[in-house]
Every structure is written in structure tokens, then in C-alpha cells.
């Protein structure tokens, strides 16, 4: 176990944050909400090539100061993508002997909506937020395409874009079933439903959900610092050697084998 408590929570640690679970290689150096440097490379399928040199450049841009910890998106998302981020993060944390913070890539994606909810940023889809969301809770639903009508998704509730509460765990779901049920629940709860992330492949389904807003946003590394600092402050650090991605599902080979075993077990 890495000693994650070398500094106290009030120290405002300098964190190297990155996520490679999606098409964007997102990285930042943050001190809490303060962003010293950030990079977003749209190098799909090339994260493994760029990641370490991107991090090197980023650290130099941030002033070359010794960092206090590393935060990484552990998935879900592209299997290969999350492995790249997790492999880099655990190796750097081990080599530098710094605390490692594991973040949900979906929570990180949800946070991309935060500046819009806070009113710091505006888009046509979000023009009405500032007036609407104050009166009722917002359910932010980050989604990543998982093919065959599936998404990796989760659900968070917020009122002002700064305090977040998780309502659903990260999981793989059928958008055709999950979307309508979320919309019905949101209507009942009086919540505004906001989908964030890889909207494109599921736009047709989302368009049928009354009152739902869809924001095609990508992971924003500038928002990772707050998440990382919050977890570090609570002492939520990972065992570096044991740290692994959250794929949310078994491999196909294991599923096939497991199905057979279960059927036999039940017989």
C-alpha cells in the first residue's frame, strides 16, 4: 500500500491527472480546482504512443515541480485505452512512490458538464441551464458507446454543478431500455435529465426521451483535479500493485465459459 497520507488534506496537493478510456487523451496538472496545465490530444488508437511524452511535456509546462500524487481514469471505456492509462499511472506511482487515486472514467466524463451547469461555459443545448437547474435537481448521465446498442453509463445528481451525488454505479447497459426508464424516473422525481459524452451513436434513442438534454462533450482533464483532490483528502488511495481497470464486464471468453458452468451448476 502506498502511503497516501504523507500530506494532510489541507495541503492542496499537486496532482498529475489523466484519462485514456475514450478517443481523447486527456491530461492535466492540477492543484485542487486550479489547473496549472492541461492537454487534450485527439489521437484515437494512438494513446499508447503519445501518453508518456505528453505527460512529460505537460509536467514541464506546469513548471516541473515535483507532483504529490497521480489520478487516473480506471474505466470503463475502451479496454485497451484504460489499460494504457492504468499501466502508466501505476508504474509512475510506484517509481515515484506517490499516492495513486483511481477515478471512474464515467464520473470524469460527467464532470465535463460541470462548467455548463455552473454557468462558466455555454452551448446552445445549455443556454437554459442557469435558469432551469436552480429550481430542480439535475441528473447527469455520462455515456460511452459500448457497441450493439449498449453504453457504459452511470448517473449523478447535482443541483449547482459543484456538489455531486452518485445515483447509479458504472455499468454496461442497453440504452434502448435504460434511457426510457431513466426518463420516466426523472419525470417522476422532477429532475432534469442530461446525457453527456458519446451521444452520436445513440442520438436516435435519446431524441425519443422527452425533456432530456444531450451534450456531446468529451472528457475534460481540467475537471479531474477537483475529483482527485476530494478522493485524496478522504484518504481514498489505491494499492498500487493491485490496481486494475474497471472494465465492468468479463471478457467474451470468460462469459462463454461462465455461462456453460452456470447452466451445469443449475441442472
Amino acid at each position, binding site marked *: 500500500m502506498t502511503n497516501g497520507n504523507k500530506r494532510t488534506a489541507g495541503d492542496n496537493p499537486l496532482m498529475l491527472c489523466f484519462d485514456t478510456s475514450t478517443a481523447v487523451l486527456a491530461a492535466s496538472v492540477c492543484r485542487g480546482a486550479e489547473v496549472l496545465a492541461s492537454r487534450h490530444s485527439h489521437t484515437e488508437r494512438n494513446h*499508447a*504512443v*503519445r*501518453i*508518456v*511524452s505528453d*505527460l*512529460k511535456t505537460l509536467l514541464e509546462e506546469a513548471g516541473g515541480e515535483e507532483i504529490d500524487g497521480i489520478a487516473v481514469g480506471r474505466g470503463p471505456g475502451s*479496454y*485497451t485505452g484504460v*489499460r*494504457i492509462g*492504468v*499501466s*502508466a499511472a*501505476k*508504474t*509512475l506511482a*510506484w*517509481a*515515484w512512490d506517490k499516492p495513486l487515486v483511481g477515478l471512474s472514467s464515467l464520473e470524469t466524463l460527467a464532470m465535463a458538464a460541470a462548467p455548463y451547469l455552473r454557468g462558466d461555459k455555454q452551448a446552445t443545448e445549455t443556454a437554459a441551464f442557469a435558469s432551469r437547474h436552480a429550481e430542480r435537481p439535475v441528473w447527469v448521465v455520462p455515456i460511452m458507446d459500448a457497441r450493439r446498442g449498449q453504453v457504459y453509463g452511470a448517473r449523478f445528481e447535482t443541483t449547482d454543478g459543484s456538489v455531486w451525488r452518485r445515483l447509479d454505479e458504472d455499468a454496461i447497459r442497453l440504452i434502448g431500455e435504460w434511457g426510457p426508464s431513466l426518463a420516466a424516473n426523472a419525470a417522476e422525481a422532477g429532475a432534469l435529465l442530461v446525457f453527456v459524452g458519446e451521444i452520436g451513436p445513440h442520438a436516435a434513442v435519446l431524441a425519443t426521451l422527452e425533456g432530456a438534454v444531450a451534450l456531446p462533450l468529451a472528457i475534460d482533464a481540467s475537471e479531474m483535479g477537483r475529483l482527485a483532490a476530494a478522493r485524496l483528502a478522504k484518504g481514498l488511495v489505491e494499492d*498500487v*500493485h*493491485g490496481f*486494475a*481497470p474497471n*472494465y465492468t464486464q468479463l*471478457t*467474451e*471468453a*470468460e462469459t462463454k*465459459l461462465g455461462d456453460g458452468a452456470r447452466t451445469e451448476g443449475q441442472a
Partner: protein
Amino acid sequence: MTTKHVSEKKDGSLLLAIETSCDETSAAVVRDGREVLSNIVSSQIETHRRFGGVVPEIASRKHVESITLIVQEALTEAGVSRRDIDAIAVTQGPGLIGALLVGVVAAKSLALALDVPLIGTHHIAGHIYANRLIGDIVYPALALVVSGGHTELVLLPEEGVFRIVGRTRDDAVGEAYDKVARALFFPYPGGPHVDRLAQQSDEEIVLPRAWLEEGSYDFSFSGLKSAVLAEINRTKMKGLDPDFAALARGFQNSVVDVVTTKAMKAAAEFGARQLLLCGGVAANRGIRERLAARCEEAGLPMLVPPMSLCSDNAAMIGAAADLKWRRGQFSSLDLAAAAQVSLEEWSV
């Protein structure tokens, strides 16, 4: 002997090497390319056995789970600290791309964190230079690389220079062994079972030899594998039980005959002063014993590493990377893992 880069020649080295090209997660500390201070290998074979072969996605997942622990064990066993390491060596390819990526990203991260050079290393160069961990290589040397994924005859006219003179056109030797093993109902990985069964049999069902065209040092084993399957079917059609042991012996003799004959011919043609046997299938008794006998007849010295250095391991990667270390030839942090990568181009 070439003198290029001699001005950048480095003195003694302490390399931390990582190998994750298939289903072994391995890390090693190697001094001067010839002394193994540690060589930790975490095999996933038990995990993959129930699937009847290596599942790439599972292999990649396992690599991520154990990579830093294996690296730490390698340092601990070598009795060195992170700060003592001069450079990081890593298998760049060939291999399973998803598996290679984990090792390459970890190695690049280590190079950044420890502020030392990175040396992307060719997996087959590693198998060949495993021989340097047990003795001196005399050039020109001819290497016979036999493994689950490779069957190659490689000429080394001088240190660190690789010229492929022959390679398989279809299945690798190890692959052929495993496929025949499956036909004979052995569990995965079945190659060693076929080797053992062949040794035990007094009978032999003689099978064809794929010599290919005159003067070629290439190999082909898929026809031989088909011949084994055809023989099993023919016997079953007659309502008889196939003599698996005699078939195993026939298969083994065909493979060994072709492989050793071509190796000896190439050694003679290119004036090799040493024969290097390497790769995971170098443990195969049939190949090892026949090649040793033929080398002795020809008065050609033969080197073959112990089993722990024949199967995939990181020490061999450290041994090969030393070639580049001594010449100051390093990789950038943008090093890309590659499923296919040329051995000849990797030459120093």
C-alpha cells in the same frame, strides 16, 4: 567489425528489462548483457489452459494486474534499487499487440520517472541473445529460433547484426506441435506431450518431409499437420484405433529431420562458427538431441540456453538490449509496440 558509434560506447550496464509479448509477465535485471541478477516470470498458463489457448484480452488484463509487482520483485531479488538502473529495456514486438502495449507503456513510464534511456527490443533478438547469458557467441553464428510463434534461421555475420535466411511460410514449429497434440487429445499446451510420446514409441508411421524448393531454407509445417489428421481419419474409417505414439514419432521425425538438415546446410553455406538453438521449443528433446548430434559430427560448437532462458523471459530482452546500450542507440518516449517488427532492421 564495424566501428560506428564507437565514440558513444558505454561502459558496464545495469538494465531493467520487461517482457509482455504473450502470456508471461516478466521483469529482469541484467548486468552487461550477460549476467542475470534476477529474472522473474509470472506465467499465466493456468489461466489460459481452460480456454485451450492464449486469450489475448485475458493476457492483457493479467499483465496490467501484475506488472509493477513483477518489476519490484525483479529489483528486490537483484538487490538493486530503482536509482541503480542505467536504462529500461522492453520488448517492442513481435507479439500480441494488447499484451505488448502494457509492457511498453510501463517501460516508458519507468524511463520518464527514473530519467534513464529506453531501449525498445526485438523479441527474437532476445531469444537469440539468451545464448550470451550462458557463453560467448562466436561470429558468424547461425541461430535456429523455434517457438510457438516463430521458426527462423537467422545468420549473425557479426555482433548485433541479423540476417534472416529462412522462416516458416505457415505454422511455427510450436504451433504445429500444439495442433497435432490437440488431434491426439492432449490438453493445452500439448507440444511437450507429443515430444514425450514420440520418445517412448518404437514404431513410426513415416510422414512426408516438406523440403520446399531446392536451396530454400524456408519451412512449412501445415502440410505435415494435415498428414497427421488424414492418417487418423484413414485409420478410423477402417474401424481401427490410430497408433498415436507411432504417429507422434513420425511427426517428430519429420520436423526434426527438416529443421536440423536445413540448419546444418545453412551453417555450412554461410561459414557459421557456432550454432545457437533458442526459443521455447528448444526444450524439445527430439530437436535438441538430433541437432547436438549433427553439430558434433560436423565439429560445429552448439549453444543452447537452459529452459528458463528459452521460454519467454525478460533476461533475454536485457541481454539483447545491451547491444544497443553499448552503442548508445536508444528509443524515444514515443516508442510504439508493434505486432510485427523487422528483426533485420533492429540490427545495431
